[in-house]
């Protein structure tokens, strides 16, 4: 949407170039009067009706969605909802920096929102989209807090924008993704992608015949590198000679570039593609070329019915529901939450037809071991792809320290972070 302004700017230039004949220059520009809109009575009924209609629609969608969800989550949601109030009299707002239908990051959070709505039918839930970090976000959080919203959740890195508002509205509770500084009314959360990525790696490594897996990703930041490293550990556990070729495209969402990167990796011999990008482009390439695809955080089997293997999923719903419940119960405390499989914040999509029972047996075994705490895929020794020892024999990357790892790529990854 922002591109529209871009386009307008370029258009303006061409208008100038085209009309670069004479013009009257000394005329002072007109004073820009303030927009004069008629002030009028609040059309509150219309608004309420609208909101009710919207809610009804969203509930319907949520219900549909729920049928596809894992049965376990559904039970959890129902349990929570039955245990306490239906959320009437409370309000929650979710702030997104992009659109909820991106099919990737934001859609995973939106699924969580739908689960919240399902668990608390009486809860007033608002969604704000396309809120840029910076002053626009600060304004958005301020508007919501001033409206008396009880709990405001930012689904991306909004911490700097939230802090000044939180100070001003001590009665409002705030949660943001990946923040690190708590306050009396500010907590943060993040999901341990690497748990799911390790399991995805087991499948990718089992499926690949060429031994080359292509992995287009966004930026070479800790979180992404950590996921790639865990993925590669999974791949090489079942296929010690396989390599993971990583390309960073310096964007989280750029369909044409995502497609180019995927094409290039496929041309280079990759027969399985994975990705850490938000559009369906990589999945489409895999489908069109008869390859296999590991998704990123969402089920892409609709885009790539034949190519589809698996993807970890973010399960924000149970966490959100828990936070809302605590808010209603008055037990809410600010916290830094980092959760993986054990915390239920990482799940998995349905598996594709090329995933054999044998592969599933291995994945399920490892998942259970991680849940039981009897298996650590980050157990040393771990070498990076430049030959340095990153985790010594007998060592590991402790769960609490994972969020600051990794500024290196593991042995078996072809690619560089600088």
């Amino acid at each position, binding site marked *: 949407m922002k591109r529209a302004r871009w386009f307008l700017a370029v258009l303006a230039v061409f208008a100038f170039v085209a009309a670069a004949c004479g013009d009257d220059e000394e005329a002072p520009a007109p004073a820009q009067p303030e927009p004069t809109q008629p*002030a009028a009575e609040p059309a509150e009924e219309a608004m309420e009706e609208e909101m009710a209609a919207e809610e009804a629609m969203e509930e319907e969608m949520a219900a549909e969605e729920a049928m596809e969800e894992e049965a376990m989550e559904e039970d959890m949601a129902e349990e929570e909802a039955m245990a306490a109030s239906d959320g009437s009299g409370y309000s929650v707002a979710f702030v997104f920096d992009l659109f909820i239908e991106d099919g990737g990051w934001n859609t995973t959070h939106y699924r969580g929102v739908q689960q919240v709505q399902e668990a608390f039918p009486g809860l007033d839930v608002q969604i704000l989209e396309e809120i840029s970090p910076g002053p626009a976000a600060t304004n958005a959080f301020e508007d919501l807090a001033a409206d008396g919203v009880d709990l405001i959740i930012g689904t991306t890195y909004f911490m700097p924008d939230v802090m000044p508002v939180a100070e001003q509205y001590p009665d409002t509770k705030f949660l943001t993704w990946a923040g690190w500084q708590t306050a009396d009314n500010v907590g943060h959360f993040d999901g341990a992608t690497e748990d799911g990525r390790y399991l995805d790696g087991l499948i990718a490594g089992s499926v690949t015949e060429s031994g080359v897996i292509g992995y287009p990703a966004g930026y070479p930041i800790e979180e992404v590198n950590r996921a790639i490293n865990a993925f590669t550990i999974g791949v090489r556990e079942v296929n010690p000679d396989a390599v993971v070729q990583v390309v960073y495209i310096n964007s989280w969402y750029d369909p044409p570039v995502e497609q180019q990167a995927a094409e290039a990796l496929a041309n280079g011999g990759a027969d399985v593609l994975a990705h850490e990008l938000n559009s369906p482009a990589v999945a489409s390439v895999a489908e069109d070329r008869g390859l296999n695809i590991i998704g990123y955080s969402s089920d892409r089997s609709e885009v790539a019915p034949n190519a589809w293997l698996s993807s970890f999923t973010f399960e924000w719903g149970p966490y959100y529901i828990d936070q809302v419940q605590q808010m209603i119960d008055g037990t809410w405390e600010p916290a830094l939450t980092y959760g993986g499989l054990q915390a239920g914040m990482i799940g998995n999509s349905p598996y594709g037809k090329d995933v054999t029972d044998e592969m599933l047996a291995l994945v399920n075994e490892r998942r259970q071991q991680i849940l039981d705490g009897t298996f650590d895929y980050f157990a040393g020794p771990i070498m990076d792809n430049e030959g340095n020892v990153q985790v010594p024999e007998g060592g590991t990357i402790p769960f609490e320290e994972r969020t600051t790892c990794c500024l290196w790529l593991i042995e078996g990854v072809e690619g560089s972070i600088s």
Partner: protein
Amino acid sequence: MSVRISVEPRARPAVALRLGVPVASLLAAAAVGGVVILISGNSAIEAYRTILDSSINGVRPITRTLVLATPLILTGLAAAVAFRMKVWNIGAEGQLYMGAIVASGLALWLPAGLPKVLMLAAMVVGGAVMGALWAGVAAVPKAYFNTNEVITTLMLNFVALYFMNYLIFGTVSFWRDPGRNYPQGKLIPDAAELPVISHRLHYGLVIALAAALVLWWSLRGTTWGFELRTIGDSPSASRYAGMSVSGKIVSVLALSGALAGMAGAIEVSGVLKTLDPRALATEMGFTGIVVAAVARLNALGVVPVAVLLGAVAASGAKLQTIGLDAEIVFLLQGLIFLFVASGEFFLSNRLVLSSRSAPEPQLAATEASHE
């Protein structure tokens, strides 16, 4: 049959027209926008009341509008001064990033105990110089080899964007605060923060307004301004008259870049307090071109236009809370840009209908009716 529509410049629009057209443009945008809002199932009156409430109705809304308008004033001036000489600097976006990078770098590198005045001066001047240098990369080839500056300045935006992203997301640079879950810049020291006028509104606004005044006066009251306009109209005539056209191209592009770089420095110092690529890459530079175009390249006109766009942006989130979809909010903002810009176009130009064969429109009409 052959009726031609041609565009002719208006000699001198009447005062009533000059005041009436922007008002009419806004009303027209509001009317069309109202229909869209109604179709989307919301109340147009409620929507417009919200826009006014969250942009101009009260001290806090006004400060929010002005915070958003401040960088647009400077990038609007950056575009206006270059376009006035018909040098098309499309690179304010990148020049702003480079200014922000240098200003935040200076704030982190200089001793934190430095007096505020010195620290702020270093940041603003540093940002401006860097913006000027970045524009200079396109200006020198333009001046001496006549390369197309539309292309070079546009492309340099991407270089600056990727460089800025690299500093925070691509590597552990001097700017980056290491060991965070999500990559981010180090916070600048208190001495590097612009003082606050009210709420979150900072003194960067005053710098921007001063820049607008100085530039407006320089353009109309000095030899420098006269030369700039003359070269814009006819480079060859100016050269014949003894003006240094190449030197002027370099100096004007550098000034344009300096204004954009200053916008970046002020955004870091007054609003973000860190080098935050995601908050800087919000097209303040490109929006400046729209601002300049609507203001018809008048330095003083840039101010109200920037404030109008700031006001529209300030209400974006609030409009969503009353039930408008984000898409509808952007559509409304786009309509306001479009109508105000085209209103300005029809203010300085008029449409003339004429027949190709017959000079008399009436004759043409008769002919048409015969056929």
